[in-house]
């Protein structure tokens, strides 16, 4: 019975094996692995949905699906990518790396951590179950309002909306628990000598993310609960006939929804400088400036929400306020860009896969940021709003800025986590295929938006045919390229060249002082930071 204890001299007690190990685990590395695996699975599912959408948009006319099913796919695609792919990926990294980076033996609240993860699969099932139920004639499919739940369309919708509301509640509880855990861990579990201003930037990014989550998730939970009571219990929060206002829903939703963008990006902004510094063999430039910028962006992110619905009709002073405050975010963000570039400036760079992703990430996320600056302009936004221009913009921020950043992190830490090197050549092929097909998918969408193609339409006028075809073909290439990613990860987990403890020549930080992979329980003796 002492199997675990016999093979790992640093284990103090046996732990279950097989499925029970994963169900009951409170170990931060196990939970981190589960988060990352879940995230990758949902990334492929959400991706498959959008492949179907791009196939439908390949040509004008309705080929593969009815409009109502199309609307379900786009909404569930977004909900899955945001809540079930990007957020869990960041939480997975936090679980794996935060204790290692700050010299803690585990997360502060391990039971909560286990529960936080195991809430996710039921939520993912709730989101996708209505598709299956519809096949058996129960209900009319999943939520078809887009991921934004706008009332009164969502009041009108079928049971898919109720499932999505429940799913959002569960996901929200999971996020808040994860956030509490991360805040408590960072505040209480740092190794002696690791002051807040010596904290790795990844920890800083996550700390701010965690506060944003705790501040905004309850607002979303409130909004969808009001929606639920409007749907079933005769309230009129969003119905003018009963004294409510549909636009109030948009205010509540985006009070959560805008910080959510930074929730997805701040952890990435945290670890990208670490990657740049590793492969430039040079210390991070402007650490303090980056910390202050991250804090400032966190604060600004909760006061700019209404720029998501400029066309809904607002008084002029409100329009001006939200325009100028949104533009103000470009200032701390520019400081970050400056520091990222200054970190590689005059370095001694090599371009392993993580570095390729990190450098490509700066450029592509830059396009997302600059188009965001233009979108802040109210007058021009009347034209951009709800067109493919916006679709292209937020995929530059969330796919390039979010997912490609996560991929940089995966390649960077995978040897540390598994103890094996991944296939470098395959990794580079994956990067180039992703970067090229991503641009070919979304650059045409900028032009589609300018020419006047609204988003969320299942069929389009003939003038949009050519760009849509290019975009669809490139999207299929982008989807296929991710199969390489999955293949590379699986082969790396199963074996491969042994990774050294330091893994990368230029790496520094506590996690690289441990063996690869790190033992099940780390830091039995706390390291001391000088």
């Amino acid at each position, binding site marked *: 019975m002492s199997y675990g204890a016999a093979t790992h001299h640093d284990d103090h007690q046996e732990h279950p094996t097989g499925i029970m190990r994963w169900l009951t685990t409170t170990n931060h590395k196990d939970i981190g692995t589960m988060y990352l695996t879940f995230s990758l699975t949902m990334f492929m599912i959400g991706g498959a949905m959008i492949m179907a959408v791009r196939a439908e948009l390949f040509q*004008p*006319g309705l080929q593969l699906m009815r*409009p109502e099913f199309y*609307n379900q796919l786009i909404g569930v695609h977004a909900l899955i990518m945001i809540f079930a792919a990007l957020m869990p990926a960041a939480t997975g990294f936090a679980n794996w790396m935060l204790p290692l980076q700050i010299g803690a033996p585990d997360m502060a609240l391990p039971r909560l951590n286990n529960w936080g993860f195991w809430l996710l699969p039921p939520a993912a099932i709730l989101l996708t179950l209505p598709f299956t139920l519809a096949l058996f004639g129960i209900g*009319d499919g999943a939520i078809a309002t*887009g991921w934004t739940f706008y009332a*009164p*369309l969502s009041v*009108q919708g079928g049971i898919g909306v109720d499932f999505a509301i429940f799913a959002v509640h569960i996901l929200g509880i999971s996020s808040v628990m994860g956030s509490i855990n991360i805040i408590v861990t960072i505040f209480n579990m740092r190794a002696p000598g690791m002051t807040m201003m010596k904290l790795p930037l990844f920890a800083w990014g996550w700390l701010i993310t965690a506060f944003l989550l705790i501040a905004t998730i309850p607002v979303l939970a409130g909004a969808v609960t009001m929606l639920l009571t409007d749907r079933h219990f005769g309230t009129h929060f969003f119905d*003018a*006939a009963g004294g409510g*206002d549909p636009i109030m829903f948009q205010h509540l939703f985006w009070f959560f929804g805008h910080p959510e963008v930074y929730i997805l990006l701040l952890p990435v902004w945290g670890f990208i400088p670490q990657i740049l510094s590793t492969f430039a*063999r040079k*210390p*991070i*430039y402007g*650490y303090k400036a980056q910390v202050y910028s991250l804090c400032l962006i966190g604060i600004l992110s909760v006061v700019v929400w209404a720029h998501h*619905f400029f*066309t*809904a*009709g607002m008084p*002029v002073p409100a*329009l001006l306020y939200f*325009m*100028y405050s949104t533009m*103000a975010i470009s*200032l701390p963000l*520019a400081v970050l860009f400056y520091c990222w*570039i200054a970190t*590689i*400036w*005059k*370095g*001694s*760079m*090599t371009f392993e896969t993580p570095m390729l992703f990190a450098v490509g990430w700066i450029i592509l996320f*830059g396009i997302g940021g*600059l188009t965001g*600056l*233009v979108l802040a302009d109210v*007058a*021009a936004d*009347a034209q951009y709003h*709800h067109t493919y221009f916006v679709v292209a913009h937020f995929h530059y921020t969330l796919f390039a800025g979010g997912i490609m950043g996560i991929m940089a992190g995966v390649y960077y830490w995978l040897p540390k986590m598994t103890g094996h090197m991944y296939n470098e*050549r*395959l990794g580079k*092929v994956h990067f180039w295929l992703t970067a090229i097909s991503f641009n*070919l998918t979304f650059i045409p969408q900028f*032009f589609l938006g*300018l*020419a*006047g193609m*609204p988003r*969320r*339409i299942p*069929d389009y*006028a003939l003038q949009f045919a*050519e760009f849509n075809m*290019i975009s669809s073909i490139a999207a299929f290439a982008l989807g296929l390229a991710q199969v390489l990613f999955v293949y590379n990860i699986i082969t790396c987990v199963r074996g491969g060249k042994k990774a050294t403890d330091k893994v990368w020549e*230029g790496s520094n930080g506590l996690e690289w002082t441990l063996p690869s992979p790190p033992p099940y329980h780390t830091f039995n003796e706390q390291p001391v930071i000088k």
Partner: protein
Amino acid sequence: MVMQLIKKIRGCITLILAVLMFAPLIAHADYSWNFPKPATPMALDTLQVHNKFMIIVMVIFVVVLGIMIYSIVMHRKSKNHPAGTFTGPTTRSQIIWTLVPFVILLYIDFILMGIPAYHSVVAMEDTKTGAEMVIKITGSQWRWQYEYMDGDAKGISFVSNLITPQDQIDNKATKNKEYLLEVDNPLVLPTGKKVRVLLTSTDVIHNWWVPAFGAARDAVPGFLRETWLKIDEPGTFRGQCKELCGKGHGFMPAVVVAKNEDDFKQWAVAKKQEIAAAGAGADKTWTQAELIANGKAVYEKNCVACHQVTGMGLPPTFPALAGSKIATGPIFDADGKLIKDGHLDRVFNGKGVMPAWKSILNDTEIASVITYERNSFGNHVGDMLQPAQVKALR
């Protein structure tokens, strides 16, 4: 082996990408790289603002990218570039170099972009100054209703539906040039007049958008929103709803025909006569066959999107008419009074997702479509409703 395979795959992909990039460029020339040609002062302003901002952000992008590429090429380990150790600006000139980009951005945000943006916003929101006519646009799933509130066309009101045949959408017929952007009754407006546009909705949020006008505003149920237009030249302008409003969202075009002052007046007179003639039908007695034939046309224009050609609907949101209790039940009670929640009451006043048609369709259209529904899709009620009966109940 694996290496060769990867090389082959790489070669194939390069080839495919190269073909993909150029094939459509050669095959067609129908590409649009920017906003459509502006037709109103607001659209012109939007285009200018957009062009200016695009140039600014592209310059920023190219400069920053240039610096990065220089660094990527020069500061490599393979070129034996020694790694620096600096972590922040130390000398005075370095601090100045750090602050310069910050100040430039501050200038771009709040002066170069901020000031023109301010003027554009103020002009965009000024719907009342010098407005010469008012038009009300009501969005419904999935059509627009236009009402002329004053001037030569005062009192004219009509509904505008998509007329692209279902066969074209289902790829069974060749698509028209104006596929999905063609309607039965376009909104007709005079050129050179500032038109104040009031927007509302009967069900969910819509957004009335014609790209050449540079104005887009949500139509919010229960509220009035406003914007304005002043069309420079006569012509036809096409756009569509751009706020997700359910399954018909992609099939809700907004088409505007701009005419000069005289042509507009003539059109208004002719349209008024047309509406009067249609209303006159209410005074004659129709045969059941006439009503059913007319009702089929009304049904196909206004009802099929939800209740379907077969009358089977899309339950549970859009109930079937075939065998429906309402569509086969009595319309009037024994005293000849309208039955609440009966067939006519439901068409008149709507319920839930079903719009109220009272103010949208005329007496003949309502009588015809009800008679059609009671005697089609396997319904055999056998009765009919005369337009005069509908008129009497208004």
